[in-house]
């Protein structure tokens, strides 16, 4: 049975507006990707490099080289090679110094970039083997010499190191069944030397080590790790050898032995391609960007996982933070001055620490000894942070509810908890919700820093994709849109709640018994 009074018209137009806005954002994103390169004068050779703007990766051979050779140049340091290449593409630097194979790959994936033919250095790539394993070193060196003589090595190199865009040739590499195990440590993501394609480890390095193993009657097992972990894996005995586009430097040679060089990978200079004209219409390049960033190798799965992590961290932190915030608020409003003092100190401390610092403090210091999922640490961090803001919000909202109504409820005979749940809370919630919404959105966006403690959230996932595709704009814009959608969904679910508690938006019907 329902008693119905006036019906307020439902505002469906709001959702429509959001769809239009999202479309607009996508379109502008597409235009942005379509025309990222800005021309800053034509550079065809390295004649201006000694006073030019050079981009290098921090700690790379390119950095050391550029510092020595071009002291008058303007150096821009980037944390990753990808960022330096993106800066080149965007016209923020004019030269990037990097290894030949890197330049080759970037040129292939970004038609607007190219590299100069001059070799700046002579770096030799070799296989690293443990200091005490001289038997293996000798065997590998013997096979390498043999491969160089019979042309096998040249075959392998031409198969993988290609200037054109044609796909890599598929060859069957003979393998020994059940032979002695050769534990090979690699660090993937180094096309064309060692990378993942269709869930297999492939590349020049892989083909070479597999063929060597065959000659030695051994079978290869790979373990993929970060580049900095390769040499420790060798010295600790967890791997027999390392093959990963590794330059045989003197420093490394102190810890490991290097085989004969099998490939020469000099530093070269990358520039913007002066002859580059985008032949494709803008919608084609968008299509290519989309396919490259999301469809190829199912990269969207990465993004989906990141999205899920962001949603999990956000929703759990919002829920726990609100509950915790309520508790802190109750403590703060307690008549006992010691308890309310504790709450006040808690709020001041949490609000005074940047959330990223709090996150790292918890992860690296407070919870360092405990084997705990980083996602849980993120949830704890953001719950703590959110609770401090929410508790203050609740306190002011509760304080602003008319005392007379509470008095009327008291006089009617309502117990204290009934006064709170029936009279104070619904009205305080209505006052708090608009601000709460804002806090929630800002918390969701703040979770983008969880990458600092090795969580793959949405931001981190887009970073990974950017590192593979060397496309800055498209993944970033899609990430921005995804954040926008998360916020919008959260806000609209809150708005629905608001509709239920805002007398002016609620339907005027009295709920009666069935």
């Amino acid at each position: 049975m329902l008693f119905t009074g006036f019906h307020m018209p439902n505002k469906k137009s709001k959702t429509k507006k959001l769809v239009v806005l999202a479309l607009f954002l996508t379109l502008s994103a597409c235009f942005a990707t379509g025309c990222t390169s800005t021309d800053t004068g034509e550079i065809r050779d390295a004649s201006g490099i000694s006073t030019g703007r050079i981009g290098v990766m921090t700690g790379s051979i390119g950095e050391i080289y550029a510092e020595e050779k071009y002291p008058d140049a303007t150096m821009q340091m980037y944390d990753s090679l990808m960022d330096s290449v993106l800066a080149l593409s965007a016209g923020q630097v004019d030269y990037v110094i990097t290894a030949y194979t890197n330049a080759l790959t970037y040129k292939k994936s970004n038609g607007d970039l190219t590299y100069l033919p001059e070799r700046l250095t002579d770096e030799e790539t070799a296989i690293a083997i443990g200091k005490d394993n001289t038997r293996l070193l000798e065997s590998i060196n013997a096979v390498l010499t043999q491969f160089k003589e019979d042309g096998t090595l040249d075959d392998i190199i031409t198969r993988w190191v290609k200037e054109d865009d044609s796909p890599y040739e598929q060859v069957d590499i003979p393998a020994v069944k059940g032979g002695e195990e050769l534990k090979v440590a690699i660090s993937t993501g180094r096309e064309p030397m060692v990378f993942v394609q269709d869930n297999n480890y492939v590349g020049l390095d892989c083909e070479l080590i597999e063929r060597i193993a065959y000659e030695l009657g051994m079978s290869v097992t790979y373990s993929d790790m970060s580049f900095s972990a390769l040499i420790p894996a060798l010295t600790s005995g967890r791997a027999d050898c390392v093959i990963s586009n590794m330059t045989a430097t003197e420093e490394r040679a102190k810890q490991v032995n290097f085989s004969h060089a099998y490939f020469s990978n000099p530093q070269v200079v990358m520039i913007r391609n002066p002859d580059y004209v985008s032949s494709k219409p803008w919608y084609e390049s968008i299509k290519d960007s989309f396919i490259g960033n999301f469809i190829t190798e199912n990269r969207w799965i990465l993004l989906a996982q990141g999205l899920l992590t962001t949603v999990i961290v956000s929703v759990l932190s919002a829920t726990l933070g609100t509950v915790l915030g309520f508790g802190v608020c109750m403590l703060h409003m307690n008549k006992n001055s010691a308890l309310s003092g504790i709450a006040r100190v808690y709020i001041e401390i949490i609000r005074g620490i940047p959330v990223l610092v709090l996150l790292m403090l918890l992860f690296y210091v407070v919870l360092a000894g405990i084997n705990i999922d980083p996602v849980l640490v993120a949830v704890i961090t953001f719950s703590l942070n959110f609770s401090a803001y929410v508790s203050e919000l609740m306190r002011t909202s509760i304080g602003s509810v008319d005392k007379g109504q509470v008095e009327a409820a008291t006089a009617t005979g309502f117990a204290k908890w009934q006064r709170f749940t029936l009279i104070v809370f619904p009205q305080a919630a209505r006052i708090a919700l608009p601000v709460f919404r804002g806090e929630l959105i800002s918390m969701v966006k703040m979770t983008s820093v969880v990458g600092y403690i090795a969580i793959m959230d949405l931001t981190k996932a887009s970073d990974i994709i950017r590192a593979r595709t060397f496309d800055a704009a498209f993944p970033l814009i899609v990430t921005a849109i995804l954040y926008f959608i998360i916020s919008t969904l959260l806000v609209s679910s809150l708005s629905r709640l608001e509709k239920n508690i805002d007398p002016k938006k609620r339907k005027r019907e009295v709920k009666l018994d069935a």
Partner: protein
Amino acid sequence: MIEVKHLKKSFGDVQVLRDINAVIEKGDVISIIGPSGTGKSTFLRCLNMLETPSAGDIVFDGENLTAPDTDLNKMRQKMGMVFQSFNLYAHLMIIENIMLGPTKLLGLSRTQAYEEGLELLRMVGLSEKATAYPDELSGGQKQRAAIARTLAMHPEVVLFDEPTSALDPTMVSEVLSVMRKLAQDGMTMLVVTHEMKFAQDVSTRVFYMDEGIIYEEGSPAQVFENPQKEKTKEFIQRIRKFNYEIRSADFDIYEMNNGVENFCIRHAIPEKQVYSLLSALEELIAMMIVPQLPPDNIQIDLSIGYSELSSSVTIELCYAGNEYNPFDADDDDLALKILGRRVRLTEYRYDTQNQLSMELKNG
């Protein structure tokens, strides 16, 4: 039904209620009147323990409310309260305001509570406003809704705390008539009010509160028509006073006249009467009394009273010296002739000093 014994209440150092004793019987309609700040509202709020008394007992239905183990919420359900500022629940529709107590506290089903609520709204004339929110109602409508909300709990007694004080004057009567009807139906009521007409017509008993106690109580006829105590009298007749002291023969008559004139303007006394009053005062004080007093000991206390109820002006003079009644002078005394046209002597007494009371004649 309610017995109040030696109730005391202090806020910090200020003692608002000094010693309140009262017995309230079933069916009583008690109006609590008195000047502002004499603890009328505090008394009412102590009855349902919205204010905790500093001392004393309140026994309601045989239970002492001030005892620590009393289930106050249970007792409050039987004791409704209507507030000056209505205090309707802003987030609930009017009908929901009414249904909240019965469903959550009395265990009524929502349908039952809804039907009873509508019935109550009809009684206070607001059935059309069932689905309105409080802020969509006028002050008078809000207060009637608040009364309906209180009645929905079937209280044994209803406390009204200045129910019409926050209302626009045009809306006072709609609330009073609902209360009048309630009184006729036999509801036990305690009403703190400034509506003297209502107190006089509707109540069975009147408490006049002053100085932190029930200063005088009785039937409306006793309190309104024949108040026994001076303060009650002044309050009932709504007497406003102006006092002036004369301590020298060369007193500043212009200052005195100015004070009298301002007092008259404030209470809207007609100009003709003001002139009459001033001329009488000048005649009396300057021409008649001052020359009779020893020049080194002039002490005259002037007090002018104005009753808002009867709009009469009284003059009281108190002066030292030998016995002297200005009205005893010869009939052909010029000053007396002038004076006689302006005022009428009501009383002359002499104990240690002269006391002269007069009333200003109209026109």
